[in-house]
């Protein structure tokens, strides 16, 4: 499938997606700066270059209804799932107004109200969690699905195979989305993985799969829409592989020295935001000036609203330090409610 085949999105939706992806890009770039300024600590994994993946898939999902779960590279998935960007930034700033009150951090963004079930730091950890959420959906009989975003290198964990097997065995409504950015930290995929095309690896479990261009949000959307139909229709799991690229190092502590400059240059020509922008300009739906204006507005909004909110928010108080270790006042701990 090429982008020409599937132009399913209306102009308005495309414009909104462009706005959202640009926002995601600027948000992450601002995180980078804040990290350098030491406002953000810990490990920080950024998403620039991969925006079309989360946006294309979640545009096709029912956000707030379907469950979403992912890895440590989680800010953009959370925001597209409906978690307030201010609460995400405040979490990165370790403030009490953060979505996890400053107890989670960059790798652990949660928004359960939005059914964003979290970011997890152990590579491969979310595979079975997603299958379990799907099991819960199945037991309750709803039409939700669970969407699990993970990287390519995660597929070399045992949980990948364990979860695919169980998901198919029990016909669970789960969509596994592989964001194949060709690297697990500094190791290129062909140096870690016997079968480089990830979508082929699931055929042994009889799970339908597809590999598509993860840089074209329209292509991602179309493929995801079909995949989601499959899963929501009660046909069991689906595996969608999105070919993509991250612009920055794996995390802030990664110099990115292991990648050829040619390779980086090639991928930068397939930037998801620029491709959509140019398509809209070519179609006469957008001008360079309005795009520039939008960009300025986004930058201003991030600075004036989001960063300011995070900066001005208070730190968590000491009473939170031990508050959530165990669930408080659970009557059954004492041997029942009587």
């Amino acid at each position, binding site marked *: 499938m090429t982008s020409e085949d599937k132009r399913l999105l209306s102009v308005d939706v495309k414009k909104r997606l462009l706005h959202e992806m640009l926002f995601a890009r600027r948000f992450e770039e601002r995180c980078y700066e804040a990290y350098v300024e030491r406002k953000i600590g810990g490990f920080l994994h950024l998403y620039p270059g991969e925006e079309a993946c989360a946006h294309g898939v979640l545009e096709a999902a029912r956000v707030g209804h379907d469950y979403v779960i992912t890895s440590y590279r989680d800010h953009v998935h959370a925001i597209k799932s409906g978690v307030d960007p201010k609460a995400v930034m405040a979490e990165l700033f370790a403030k009490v107004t953060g979505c996890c009150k400053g107890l989670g951090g960059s790798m652990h963004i949660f928004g359960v109200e939005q059914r964003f079930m979290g970011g997890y730091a152990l590579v491969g950890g979310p595979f079975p969690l997603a299958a379990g959420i799907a099991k819960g959906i199945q037991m309750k009989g709803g039409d939700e699905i669970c969407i699990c975003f993970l990287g390519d290198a995660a597929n070399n964990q045992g949980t990948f195979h364990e979860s695919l097997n169980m998901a198919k065995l029990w016909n669970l409504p789960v969509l596994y989305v592989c964001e194949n950015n060709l690297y697990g930290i500094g190791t290129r995929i062909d140096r870690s993985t016997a079968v480089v095309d990830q979508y082929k690896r699931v055929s042994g479990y009889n799970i339908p799969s597809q590999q598509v261009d993860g840089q074209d949000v329209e292509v991602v959307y179309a493929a995801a829409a079909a995949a989601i139909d499959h899963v929501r229709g009660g046909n069991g799991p689906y595996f969608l592989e999105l070919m993509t690229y991250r612009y920055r190092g794996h995390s802030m502590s990664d110099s990115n020295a292991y990648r050829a400059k040619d390779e980086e240059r090639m991928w930068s020509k397939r930037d998801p935001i620029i491709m959509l922008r140019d398509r809209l300009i070519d179609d006469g739906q957008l001008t360079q000036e309005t795009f520039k204006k939008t960009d300025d507005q986004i930058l201003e909004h991030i600075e004036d609203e989001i960063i300011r909110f995070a900066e001005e928010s208070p730190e968590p108080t000491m009473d939170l330090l031990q508050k959530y270790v165990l669930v408080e006042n659970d009557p059954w701990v*004492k041997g029942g409610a009587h």
Partner: protein
Amino acid sequence: MATMMFWEAIRRALDEEMARDPMVICMGEDIGVAGGTYKATQGLYDKYGPERVMDTPISENGFTGLAIGASFVGVRPVVEIMSVNFAWLATDQIVNTAAKVHYMSGGQIKAPIVIRTPGGTAHQLGAQHSARMEKVFMGVAGLRVVTPSTPRQAYGLIKSAVRCEDPVLINEHELIYNLKGEVPDEEYFHPLEGSEIARQGKDVSLFGYNVSVHWCLQAAKKLADQHGIDAEVIDLYGLNPLDRAGIAESVSKTHRAVVVEEAEAPVGVGAEVMAILNEECFFEMDAPPARVSALNVPIPYNHTLEKAAIPNADDIVKAVLKLFGK
């Protein structure tokens, strides 16, 4: 009060909880059609069907993780890990996810999962089937650990664990599934925290948990019959958190303490109880506290060597006599 075997008490608790709440499910290897390695789920597959009594693939980390994910959205899974030795494979999901997700989500997600798993040395099962992992799990913040020594405790702890909002690991023992004991006829919920006095005494406190409670009781009888020493036996069924107050209370009365653990001494229940004694009743002690532990070795296959590696009632008697300078 009905008398029943340990495994029957577990099955009764699971059956009652499954009948009450359609979101309670059981998962594990061979627990369904086969009824469970120790029969703890016998008959439940026929009664509740394959969707609620799930025979899992041999994927410990996978199915434990799946159960944890299901618990995020309202399912109340009771996972049986066939043997605690295989729980090592699931420690990732137990420790990294179940124990931490409530905390790191700022209280947004709960993981009310129950993990039942038998640990301990049995009869010549060899090094890879004789693990005692309670010391590993009791050190994990966010994970409740309980370990029943009697059918009544097994029944009541499962009942409470299924309803508790925290992840609870129930450390059972291969050797006592056929142990008989009284279980109340009416529903009974055992507290998940605390300890029980298994035998009243005034001269020395013997701390045990799970099978070692039975060794302590045997030792207490010998001490009374042969040495005129009146030992109190404290059953530490709650390992995380440990019953700090209960431990201190007993020793404040007896002024002497021996901790008996089936596992190797380093970083174990004994070490932890002794630290508590240090902190809570150092000046109450008439003798330094002692511990009776397994040798720090992989468990050997040979029967004589295996027995030598694991403590017994006589070792406890000896340790107590030493405290009395005998």
